[in-house]
């Protein structure tokens, strides 16, 4: 079944450690996004990519980095995790920017 896959589904991470959240889509979508969702809040955009080879900063990019080496993969890296990065992280993709988005099942990250 075509879709978008995130890994891991959950992780407990010690503060100061480096962590990469993986995201892969098989729909050949041009645009991909990383969001975080905190309790009681809506989604906040961390980084996005409108097409392979390009990335952009969203609303809350500090402490995170992304790369888009190919169409399918869009990993999110936390260089040195802090407790405020405890959240649920969602990866999404759309055929082109601004269109219907498909979401992964999320990664629940706890930084202790």
């Amino acid at each position: 079944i075509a879709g978008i896959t995130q890994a891991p589904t959950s992780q407990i991470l010690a503060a100061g450690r480096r962590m990469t959240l993986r995201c892969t889509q098989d729909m050949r979508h041009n645009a991909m996004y990383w969001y975080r969702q905190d309790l009681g809040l809506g989604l906040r955009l961390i980084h996005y990519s409108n097409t392979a080879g390009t990335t952009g900063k969203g609303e809350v990019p500090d402490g995170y980095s992304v790369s888009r080496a190919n169409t399918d993969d869009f990993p999110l890296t936390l260089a040195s995790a802090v407790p405020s990065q405890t959240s649920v992280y969602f990866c999404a993709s759309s055929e082109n920017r601004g269109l219907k988005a498909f979401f992964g099942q999320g990664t629940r990250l706890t930084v202790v």
Partner: protein
Amino acid sequence: SQQGEEDPQALSIQEGENATMNCSYKTSINNLQWYRQNSGRGLVHLILIRSNEREKHSGRLRVTLDTSKKSSSLLITASRAADTASYFCAPVMDSNYQLIWGAGTKLIIKP
């Protein structure tokens, strides 16, 4: 902030009743989308309405858009227990095609 805002924050109705959720935003938009999120799951796209459209239907869903008032509504008719979820509107900014997210409406359908 250019966040969208859903209203009400929470809604609890009996199965079979209609549920109406509202959304307001502040910027010029290209389109507006509605999503559903079941507890602990990813978001699922429900419907997209373009800025030049006023109403759109999909099954039991009816979405309206009033760009002069910068508002939209989602109506779910004949609600079912399975409709219990959080619902988010996502206006898409005309300037950069980014989706703007609010905190959502938590809908509970009582059997």
